[in-house]
């Protein structure tokens, strides 16, 4: 007779269920944070999933008093940095879109929107990782300054000035491209 122990999967059901909830609650922001840094859907999927696996393996180091995503984000960021370092010639794809799209009966406006998206995406790709990261977290992911401060382990004032200079650099670069 097969005992209950032998019928159990490799990961206990309780642990699996707990971790499944954590993954499902955090997968979207994990994916989008990776997408902003890596600029590719496939890489963002792979790296964000790999980061969850590392988080699972190191779960004993996680302090439940802290937010899971703050802890997870450090693993994710490190994996992203390693990936960027090891794949210098990686291909990026346009990962931006308009929040509200202009209706297709206005082709001129549509072309204008597409051009602006392309310009913004290309210019953001030229920024360094720190600048890109802070822009993604604040402007696209809507994290508060204190959340970003906790995630990046830097003071809120530094978050603000890093963000300010990242936007300034983005503006200057876009302006130069438009001239």
């Amino acid at each position, binding site marked *: 007779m097969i005992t209950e122990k032998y019928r159990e999967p490799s990961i206990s059901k309780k642990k699996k269920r707990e971790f499944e909830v954590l993954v499902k609650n955090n997968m979207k922001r994990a994916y989008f944070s990776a997408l902003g840094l890596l600029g590719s859907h496939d890489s963002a999927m792979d790296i964000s999933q790999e980061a969850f696996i590392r988080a699972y393996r190191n779960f004993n180091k996680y302090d439940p008093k802290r937010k899971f995503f703050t802890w997870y984000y450090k693993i994710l960021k490190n994996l992203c940095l390693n990936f960027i370092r090891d794949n210098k010639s990686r291909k990026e794809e346009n990962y931006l879109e308009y929040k509200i799209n202009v209706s297709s009966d206005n082709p001129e406006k549509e072309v204008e929107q597409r051009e602006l*998206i392309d310009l913004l995406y290309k210019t953001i790709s030229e920024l360094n990782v720190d600048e890109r990261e802070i822009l993604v977290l604040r402007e696209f992911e809507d994290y508060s300054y204190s959340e970003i401060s906790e995630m990046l382990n830097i003071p809120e004032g530094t978050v603000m000035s890093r963000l300010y200079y990242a936007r300034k650099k983005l503006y200057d670069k876009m302006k130069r491209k438009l001239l």
Partner: protein
Amino acid sequence: MNERFIILVEKYFDNVLSAEEKNEFEHLLNSNPELKNEFEEQKKIKEVLNKMKLRNPSRDVWDSYWMGVYNKIERGLAWIAISIGALIFFGYASFEAVNAFINDTTTPPLVKVGIGILIFGVLILIFSLLREKIFTHKRDNYKEIQR
């Protein structure tokens, strides 16, 4: 750049300026055209950024996301088990093979010495490669952040 000005700009965008800070901010803008210009630039780029969002993948991606993570965790455990099993098996097989080889009276001593040197060379090579890998890891700039 004035750090105070930067904080005020960020607070302005966040809509959390107090009445006092609002006055201070307006005073800064009115008294310094360079800061006013900087602020206008920040507003323009912020406007563009506010219109955009990161592209959302299809719903299927989210539906299969957890299974992707779970499958990888399970496969990782399977690979660890396979590796340990293989290590024990091949360790034992190697031990038995070396024993049989040493005790084999039909193989000429010169062949035994030759094979012995060959195995020794392979072991040095493996050791050298492992040492290089460990050395590279120690000097890895991202070593601290790999976890």
